[in-house]
């Protein structure tokens, strides 16, 4: 069998806004043992459709099968297997106020972000960047003892 190398893939699925549509998609992955790395959903403005972005791993043969199976679902309008895309992910991170705030602020600015909230005990920053760089940001932020990091999942758009 050719094309059996597992690669990271990002697909966009355009679906009708229905109550059970997300579970149809995730159970399709689950039933076949395909892994979902990240998944985001949001309604498409001025339509009755939603845009789902799924990051997963698999061979091109597997991805072809996934794409076709997704297409078969009645509420699925379109499946886009991204090749040339702009891909972004957002992350929120919370640090103790006692840490070096200037450093944290510079760090998040370096990754397309900044401080979004400051409380009595905590400071919260938001950054939005490519998933690979998000990983770097999280690594770099470790020295400031983050108490909580929440990743938003990937969104992508074809160039």
């Amino acid at each position, binding site marked *: 069998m050719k094309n059996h190398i597992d690669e990271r893939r990002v697909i966009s699925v355009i679906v*009708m806004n229905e*109550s059970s549509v997300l*579970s149809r998609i995730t159970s399709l992955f689950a*039933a076949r043992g395909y892994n979902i790395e990240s998944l985001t959903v949001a309604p498409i403005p001025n339509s009755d459709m939603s845009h789902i972005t799924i990051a997963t791993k698999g061979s091109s043969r597997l991805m072809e099968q996934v794409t*076709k199976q997704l*297409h078969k679902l*009645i509420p*699925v*309008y379109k499946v886009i297997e991204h090749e040339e895309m702009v891909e972004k992910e957002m992350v929120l991170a919370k640090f103790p106020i006692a840490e070096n705030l200037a450093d944290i602020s510079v760090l998040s600015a370096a990754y397309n972000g900044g401080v979004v909230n400051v409380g009595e005990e905590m400071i919260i920053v938001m950054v939005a960047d490519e998933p690979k760089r998000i990983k770097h940001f999280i690594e770099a932020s470790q020295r400031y003892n983050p108490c909580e990091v929440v990743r938003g999942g990937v969104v992508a758009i074809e160039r």
Partner: protein
Amino acid sequence: MGQMSGAQMICEALIAEGVTTVFGYPGGAIMHVYDEIYKQNGFEHILNRHEQAAVHAADGYARATGEVGVAMVTSGPGFTNAVTGIATAYTDSTPMVVISGQVPRSLIGTDGFQEIDAVGISRPCTKHNFLVHSLKELPRVLKEAFYIARSGRPGPVLVDIPKDITVDIGEFNYPDSVDIPTYKPTYKGNKRQIEKAVEAIKSAKKPLLYLGGGIVLSNASELVREFANKTQIPAVETLMARGVMGADNPLLLGMLGMHGNYASNMAMSETDLVISLGARFDDRVTGKLSEFAKYADIIHVDIDAANIGKLVDVDYPIVGDVTEVLKAMLPQLNGVDTARYKSWRDVLNHYNELHPQSYIDSDEVIKPQWAIERIGELVGKDAIITSDVGQHQMWAAQHYPFDRPRQWINSGGLGTMGFGFPAAIGAKRACPDKIVINITGDGSILMNMQELVTASEYKIPVINVILNNHFLGMVRQWQTFFYEKRYSETDLSFQPNFKALAQSCGGIGYDVSTKEEFDEALKDAIKQDRVCFMNVQTNRFEDVLPMVPSGGALFNMMLPETTKGDE
């Protein structure tokens, strides 16, 4: 149409869809609908004695006619009993609508009495399913359910309806048409691909038609015969395609696969061009994939794009309805050189002479293969044959002279024991003028034997020929071959009195142990207007052969020598 209750809307929608028979079983959550069924005259309702049987009956009805089968069940256990029937219909792509009751909306999610998540459970075994959220959407959902069930690659659609919606009163406007922007099945094949495929056919030396159940679903058998006749290309049929070519067609080699005949499996192993029409390269057909059609390019015509390239690499993929694709192909094959494939046909005919589909008959005992051939001789082209699952199913597929599509109804994909009897009831209701015979085994028949009561009550005279070897025969065969004859839990020596069982439910029973008795019983059963059990004692240790051991290459067949007399 004016104001009416949800329950009335369901009945009106069924009538509008042309439904004449509904198979089902009432219960708490679906009672309002049954109350309306009581009041109407638009369709009849058959009360099967188990929800699984009701769905199989709707399935048999659908397969015999090509129409959408309809089953109705209540919530909770009513629905879960139906799941096996729905899954059976799903794997064999039967057009079907199943309507299930659900607890009232206010109780959903509270673990109410007889509440179960029907759309959750049925998601992997339906083409699509709906939980109806409001009375307003009910007519549209029903319309879409029928449309989805019968269009594209057909399949079962579940409509789960909370009880309070069936009581609510509202305006009924049944839509004339359906528009689902996300669902547009492809019927016409790509023109360019079809041209390329035709070129491949013209330049092949050893082409082979690989015919699947999609041809039956698409009602394309006549076109397939025309194609074969025009090109003189030999053909093999899958289990689901029996009857497509017709038993007497000289171009038909037979069935291929695990229990295919020698010539069919060798043809697939040696062909240089597979022309796959409505088949899906099931593992029971292909055997070891790396050895399957090793020397061939593959043309794959399928209405379901996901089937193409799923298991084998395809050289000429054509997404479309077999009927439409053949209509486009046939004119392009005018003047095709039929002599071109003659030496290939000669080779295959030689294979058939070398190892024909055969068995060694006996004068002492009824051989199951003899029984099936005898049914063929006595009722032949007219009858509809259903089957359960196991040895008898394979023997029926191998030995019955199937002459037309929709004559052979069996659970090929899911392999559901207990399918045959209720499916026969559905088929007989759909085709009352046809003789309907369920070829079954002493294991399978017990899995839906309560249908004796249904068949008796509604005077649906189906004939069950029980090929009784006092074994769960197919599993026994594997135990003989692969488990050193350890017959773990397959000995069915302890049996009911089948004759008395049939009689106790208002049917007729026959005990048969000689060929004369077999003829007498069958001829008598055909004349009766009651359901029959023919309990036919066969030899215990007959094997289904040829056999390709699971996972082996198609050309490595165990061929029949005769039975080995293990006793």
